[in-house]
């Protein structure tokens, strides 16, 4: 198989806070053609938008500088192209920052910033959200609106010879679909191939989640060396089949089980996995272990891409207040319950929604499952949503006041207030969205 033409794409990050060195290992030892770095969760852009408002040179991924400092010398030497959505709310500023790093390192590089996902100016507030059936304006002040762009937003930058492509909101699998369309000349009329490419993109997008990360249970699912987990690459052939692999000597495993878990991860409908590029059919995928830590992916199909694009809209959702206190030993659960009731009695009238009371160690994660009995130690957690940070802070204050006013033996109080950025989704016509790119050179 090694004699056949293939494209090798590595996935060096699966979320914004992912480890830094797996991407370096892929770039330096993985013999990859492309490196993708997927760093945008649903509300990351809304938070980035806030940073951009306070500083027009910010609003891109906070780890971009650290990641690119390490990667730029390697990719320049090896001729690897990087495609990443680390641009978040400000791809041009991210591209400018990468050029700044390249100049400091005396590297010649061509960076493209893809824009057009920001559709905030098109939002009226009257749009009905997919989740609620209610208009956007009923949720709170809108702070961001970003359409999910597809591979077609990345292709022109690849055609222009960009070596690093930085995007804002792009569907995760499109980061993989674009270089395959570019390399093999596939078009959107090749729906079966675009479907297969989307399957591969989906398997890669969470990086370590297909190589044994987020998989082990220490008893039945044993995964070696997670502390040096290797991130995946895929060898993709002209017929759309692929083999998932990783760099020799890194931690983790690639087995049918790890690939199956990732194939079904966050899939709403395996017959119609919708992206801006295709409606992909995951039910026709077949997997085969073809070697040590090598799984072959065949099958997968697709039909014509959706007419409309999804837009994630961020809104100000108020503030969450939290307070926690710990009880241990005799009657730990009884004391925690007393404490929870005291806080509830003192505060509930000031909150429109019920406060949430969790007894960590008894019922906090899986309400109604388990026996509901006490552990040796129980941590009480009280949380609630408020319109202002001041009111949200009362929760932590009341939990803290349990020190001298509540049940016996409470300790280790922690309190916090978090601003809530909520997300609702709407659909938008493709015609109203115009992606473009600009080139930055060192």
């Amino acid at each position, binding site marked *: 198989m090694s004699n056949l033409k293939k494209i090798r794409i590595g996935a060096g990050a699966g979320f914004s806070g992912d480890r830094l060195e797996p991407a370096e290992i892929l770039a330096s030892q993985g013999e990859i053609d492309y490196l993708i770095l997927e760093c945008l969760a649903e509300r990351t852009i809304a938070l980035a938008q806030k940073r951009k408002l306070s500083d027009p040179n910010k609003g891109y991924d906070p780890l971009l500088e650290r990641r690119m400092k390490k990667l730029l010398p390697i990719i320049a030497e090896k001729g690897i192209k990087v495609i990443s959505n680390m641009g978040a709310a400000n791809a041009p500023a991210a591209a400018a920052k990468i050029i700044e790093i390249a100049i400091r390192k005396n590297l010649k590089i061509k960076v493209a910033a893809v824009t057009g996902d920001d559709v905030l100016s098109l939002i009226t507030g009257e749009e009905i959200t997919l*989740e609620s059936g209610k208009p956007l304006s009923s949720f709170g002040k809108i702070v961001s609106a970003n359409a999910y762009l597809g591979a077609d937003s990345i292709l022109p930058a690849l055609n222009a010879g960009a070596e690093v492509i930085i995007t804002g909101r792009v569907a995760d699998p499109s980061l993989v679909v674009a270089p395959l369309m570019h390399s093999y000349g596939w078009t959107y009329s090749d729906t079966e191939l675009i479907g297969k490419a989307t399957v591969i993109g989906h398997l890669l997008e969470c990086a370590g989640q297909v190589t044994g990360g987020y998989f082990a249970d220490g008893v039945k*699912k044993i995964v070696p060396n997670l502390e040096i987990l290797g991130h995946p690459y895929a060898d993709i052939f002209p017929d759309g089949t692929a083999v998932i692999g990783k760099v020799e000597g890194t931690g983790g495993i690639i087995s049918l089980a790890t690939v199956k*878990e990732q194939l079904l991860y*966050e899939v*709403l409908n395996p017959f119609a996995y919708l992206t801006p590029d295709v409606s992909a059919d995951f039910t026709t995928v077949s*997997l085969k272990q073809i070697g040590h830590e090598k799984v072959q992916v065949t099958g997968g199909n697709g039909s014509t891409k959706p007419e409309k694009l999804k837009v994630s809209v961020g809104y100000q959702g108020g503030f969450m207040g939290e307070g926690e206190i710990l009880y241990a030993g005799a009657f730990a659960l009884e004391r925690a319950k007393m404490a929870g009731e005291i806080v509830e009695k003192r505060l509930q009238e000031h909150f429109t929604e019920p406060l949430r009371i969790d007894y960590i160690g008894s019922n906090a994660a899986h309400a*109604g499952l388990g026996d509901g009995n006490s552990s040796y130690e129980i941590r009480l957690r009280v949380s*609630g949503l408020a319109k202002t940070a001041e009111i949200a802070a009362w929760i932590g204050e009341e939990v803290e006041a349990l020190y001298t006013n509540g049940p016996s033996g409470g300790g280790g109080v922690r309190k916090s207030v978090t601003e809530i950025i909520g997300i609702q*989704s709407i659909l938008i016509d493709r015609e109203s969205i115009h992606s473009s790119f600009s080139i930055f050179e060192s």
Partner: protein
Amino acid sequence: MKTKLHDLAHSRAGDKGNTLMLSLIPYEEKDYASLVEQVSAEKVKEHLQSIVKGKVIRYELPRISSLLFVCEEALCGGVTTSLALDPHGKTLSFSLLEMEIDS
């Protein structure tokens, strides 16, 4: 004899908005038929009744011997505004694996 699902199968949880997805993948492909027969959408809804408020849809993927359960209204409104300690519902894969079936 009764056995818990975690003896036979593994799972990963995912989230989209207020919807929870749970895969169910047997360690041995020969056990797939038994899971198809015993782990119906209704049974999962009943097992997770304190967590899943909406309907449960089951998808069968025989080519990879796996099931996928899509559970609506399961995440306290969804990750961005949920008060839950685990707003993504990431720990909920192990709630499904607590379910008992006949072995």
